[in-house]
């Protein structure tokens, strides 16, 4: 299970950032640190500003106030967008999608050669999709597509990996594989991973740091400190209970716990 207590080098520091679209402000005075080798999860209801913060981190949206600092200098970034953000009409193969991840680092008039294709194959093997290299991307299942996108995001060896709701719409097995891969990248690859998600079980068991979002404000800290009944109930607006069994955290709706207790009464 993740432990957010260990100090690690800070890769990215978000300080008092406020951001939004036009006159609409969706984030107010948000501060979080993103560290190497750690998984940072952004959690909150729809429209709370998770994606806005991701866009600020990625440089796609300028903050209206505050700043984003890179203490060790700007680093390479990998990005896995929301599953439905990738076009499926393109007749590209899975390998071609992964090769796109190398495009920003390649010279203008150069096409991916055998060395680049070997790098892509290696990235695909890491996520168990190498056998799908020649398959049309649009014909892959949701889980396979997400793992291909993960291969694309990591093929250029980024130091910061950003994932926007990576397990949305995936079945249990696909989610488990994806989350395990993500955790491995942080622990063994030394990457800083930032993931926006609604999956509280994922956060409870695989994240080191969590940022709870509610109406633009954020409560951030180690998972062990932040992910408890009171904070979750407050930030998600519904009774939530966090249980721990054999070192595994389970997040369940509080109403379920109340009903279970009621049923056990004589």
């Amino acid at each position, binding site marked *: 299970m993740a432990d957010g207590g260990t100090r690690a080098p800070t890769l990215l520091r978000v300080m008092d950032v406020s951001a939004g679209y036009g006159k609409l402000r969706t984030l107010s005075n948000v501060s979080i640190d993103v560290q190497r080798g750690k998984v940072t999860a952004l959690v909150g209801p729809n429209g709370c500003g998770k994606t806005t913060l991701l866009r600020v981190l990625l440089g796609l949206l300028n903050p209206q106030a505050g700043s984003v600092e890179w203490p060790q200098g700007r680093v390479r970034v990998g*990005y896995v967008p929301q599953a439905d*953000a990738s076009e499926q*009409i393109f*007749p590209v193969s899975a390998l*071609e*999608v992964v090769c796109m991840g190398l*495009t920003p680092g390649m010279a203008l008039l150069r*096409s991916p050669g055998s060395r680049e294709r070997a790098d892509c194959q290696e990235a695909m093997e890491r996520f168990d999709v190498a056998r799908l290299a020649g398959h049309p991307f649009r014909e892959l299942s949701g889980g396979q597509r997400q793992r291909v996108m993960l291969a694309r*995001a990591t093929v250029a060896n980024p130091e910061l990996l950003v994932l926007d709701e990576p397990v949305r719409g995936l079945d249990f097995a696909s989610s488990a594989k994806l989350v395990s891969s993500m955790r491995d990248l942080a622990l063994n690859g030394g990457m800083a991973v930032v993931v926006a998600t609604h999956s509280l079980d994922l956060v409870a068991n695989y994240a080191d740091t969590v940022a709870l979002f509610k109406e633009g404000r954020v409560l951030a800290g180690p998972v062990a400190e932040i992910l408890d009944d009171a904070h979750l109930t407050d930030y998600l607006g519904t009774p939530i209970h966090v249980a721990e069994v054999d070192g595994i955290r389970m997040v369940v709706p509080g109403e379920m716990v109340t009903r279970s207790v009621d049923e056990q009464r004589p």
Partner: protein
Amino acid sequence: MTGWLDGTAFAAIPGAVAGGLIAGTLLPLLGMWVVLQRVVFLGVTLAQVAAAGVALGLILNLPSLPFGMAVTLGLVTLVGSRQRLTRLGDAALGAGFCVASALSLLFISRSASDLDEVNHVLYGNLIYAAPEAVWTVGITLAACATIIVIFFKELLFTSFDAESAAALGMRARGWQLLLFLVLALALSVSMRTTGSLLSFAMLVLPPLAALRLRVGLRTTFTLSAVLGFLGTLAGLALAVSADLHVESSITIALFMMIPICAAWRRHPAWGLALAGALFAAGASITPTDSGDAHRHHHDAAIVAAAGDPFHADVALLATQPLAGGPLRIEWSIDIHRDPEETQVPPAVWLLLSSEGLFDEHLLVPDLYALPAGDSLHTGTYLVDVDRPIHHIDGQLWSGPSDSMDSEPLDPAHTSVESCDVTRR
């Protein structure tokens, strides 16, 4: 330019064949990006904006091609630098299309230019494509296709997933702006030869057909060009054999590539069978006599090219304001003279005679100076009348350039298509 077509049914329309095949092969390479990004309406709106730009150039008496190009590129740059063009949305594109279409018609109605010129902006003038126009289209489209090939990987990533590309440090909006500037340039130039309808058809239909085959990315691009070429060739053949409107025939032929490819995908034999059936159906269409000034020139030219050493065919289009006023005569004459030693009259005059109207007009002076082979001449002039005219007939007369002879030319070597007057 006609040498390579000698002995074929296309010998009389070399400009249409060359221009059509060049545009039909290269425009699909650009259109594929529009189709893949699901912004087909952006393509048709750009085509219409280019048409409006050209029409505006005509009304302002400016060089219409550069002016139309400048208007289109300027608009794309203005909008594209403010927001991602692929996110304009159907409503904005629909509004742009309506306004551009309306402006085209308004500019045309106010234009003092040759009616031929402005009508061609909207409906195309492949039949009348001059060698220099074909060269312009060919060079421009080849340059556009080269840009697409050179920057293929950047355009692919930014088209496939613009947000990820931007997140990884690419100038996604800049690359997309380049793509749509190239598209705007190609449409502005091809517009003068193919018209907005055919340009849009060439842009979209071959890529849609190629995507039906569900093959790899590069093969899909290549196939879209091949299908564009074959569809254009089939459309030209249909237009020539059945005496149909060229641009519409090509559009229908390009569209038919979609079911053929869908059938091929099920089984190649099905695709071939459908293509064969469509070919037989097209070959069974026989020419008709009705039509207007734009429709039958290829037919007349082919008849002329069949062996008569001198032949002149005139097609007319006449319009008159609803409230009465001058009659506007749009004419085109196809002259065939081969071999060069063939005796020809010094000049050709058109004598209109109908409903009490008699008017003579010099069509082509100095016939001696024309090179051997086919030549096409067009023009427009006004005839002052104080009453509504419903129908016009005419004859070709010879004579020097300053006065008409007293005898008409031999009808065995000439023809003038009569026409009804259209009210505007």
